[in-house]
């Protein structure tokens, strides 16, 4: 029984990664590299790296936190790569081999060199991640419609054509999504 619980705690679900975490990771990456194409590539690389490192997943952190740690490393690698030709690369890693964290992900102990100054920027990024987290809890179709309408700014007609729904269905879905989001974000942000 204990063994079974332990095995479940260590389990990864890569087949759900794109649906559950892609947008969350994408927002994190865009905020740091300021380029949607590069950010998309970094998210894809993060998923591949996650698959390759799956055997190292110890279940200490949530799946998403673990993927963010990998992405953080990918962002560092990205900057190191583009700066290396100019001899500008400088990445400081303070790995404490004597602590209890020995053998853990290095990324978890790396001071983020791309942290931004300014409380409002940080707050807006936290807000964005909080919204993405709440969106990831919505039913898939509601999340899809909300994203297309609110974030991508698509027209009602285009969304209806793409998803094969009528405008009335669309507004019901958006309304339900927004009501759930208000509840999800209520305590911290309202």
């Amino acid at each position, binding site marked *: 029984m204990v063994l079974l619980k332990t095995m479940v705690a260590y389990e990864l679900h*890569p*087949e759900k*990664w*794109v*649906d559950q975490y*892609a*947008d969350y990771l*994408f*927002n994190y990456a*865009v905020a740091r590299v300021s380029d*949607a194409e590069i*950010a*998309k590539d970094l*998210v*894809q690389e993060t*998923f*591949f790296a996650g*698959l390759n490192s799956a055997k190292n997943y110890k279940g200490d952190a949530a799946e998403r936190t673990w993927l963010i740690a990998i992405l953080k490393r990918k962002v560092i690698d990205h900057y190191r790569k583009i700066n290396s030709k100019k001899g500008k690369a400088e990445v400081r890693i303070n790995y404490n081999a004597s602590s209890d964290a020995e053998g853990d992900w290095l990324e978890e102990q790396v001071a983020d060199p791309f942290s931004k100054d300014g409380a409002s920027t940080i707050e*807006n990024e936290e*807000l*964005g991640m909080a*919204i*993405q987290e709440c969106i990831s809890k919505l039913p898939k179709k509601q999340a*899809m419609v909300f*994203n*297309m*309408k*609110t*974030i*991508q700014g698509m027209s*009602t007609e285009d969304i209806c054509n*793409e998803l094969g729904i009528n405008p009335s269905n669309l*507004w*019901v879905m*958006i*309304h339900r999504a*927004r*009501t759930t*989001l*208000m509840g999800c*974000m209520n305590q911290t*942000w*309202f």
Partner: protein
Amino acid sequence: MKISREKAKELCTKSQYGEATWWELLQLNVYVLLFKECADFSAKNRKLTSLCDKANLNTLSESEKESMKKDLEKHL
């Protein structure tokens, strides 16, 4: 003119995207004047819109996600 509470809330959401017709806006405004609960909901709905704007959210398109899924499946 009379609409249900749920319909009023839906119209409130639609108005957040600037897509409510003048008739729907009229129905909504009358409802909001009459029912405090709907006014509270409207305030929260406006706040959500402002938070989404402030957060400068980004998302991958469905086709990009599908392509990402296919690539990932090849490695599974």
